[in-house]
């Protein structure tokens, strides 16, 4: 089956720098994408989403870019802070059966260095 994957399992950045986390997806029929943040011992927390009719969406300190041509998704975090240290997952959403289902990537561990 098709799946969502991540380019890098770990990423370390200096505090104050910008972070970029990448994600590749393979299902061209996916029309909605979500980034989640998961801190140790907690459940995933919604960060930002984007629909397939958009190329870019901005939130507070975060930007998601979608390149449908190469099936690539990225999450940019501006001025990375220690509290941003977590695992970040991308997920794709495909209408399926009686409910839209999310397919998750394996995650990228972001570590913010002092």
């Amino acid at each position, binding site marked *: 089956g098709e799946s969502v994957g991540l380019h890098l399992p770990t990423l370390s950045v200096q505090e104050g720098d910008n972070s970029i986390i990448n994600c590749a997806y393979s299902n061209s029929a996916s029309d909605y994408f*979500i980034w989640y943040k998961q801190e140790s011992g907690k*459940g995933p927390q*919604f960060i930002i989403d984007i629909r397939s009719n958009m190329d870019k969406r901005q939130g507070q300190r975060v930007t998601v870019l979608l390149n449908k041509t190469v099936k690539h998704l990225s999450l940019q975090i501006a001025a990375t802070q220690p509290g941003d240290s977590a695992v970040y997952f991308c997920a794709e959403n495909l209408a399926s059966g*009686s*409910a839209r*289902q999310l397919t998750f990537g394996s995650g990228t561990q972001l570590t913010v260095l002092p």
Partner: protein
Amino acid sequence: DAGITQSPRHKVTETGTPVTLRCHQTENHRYMYWYRQDPGHGLRLIHYSYGVKDTDKGEVSDGYSVSRSKTEDFLLTLESATSSQTSVYFCAISDLAGDYNEQFFGPGTRLTVL
């Protein structure tokens, strides 16, 4: 955690015993999901529910059953626990407002099968 609780939060059990995990929501959302999370894997869908008494299988449903007798509760049962079911289990809810599947997650249950 968006009005979602899971119980128990931690459980240790022995191979062959039945185990039931509970997810309770106060958001009155229609859709509820059970995922498992294992090292090196993203979240994988076990079962989901699209209404009271309406459930369907996910990607990794073998060895699990679910029930939903009321909107706020979604139960996951391991009929006869095996060591391969040692994992962290997350419940999620979604209202599918506007037909886009933003899911909110509970805090998780860590299950160890000895």
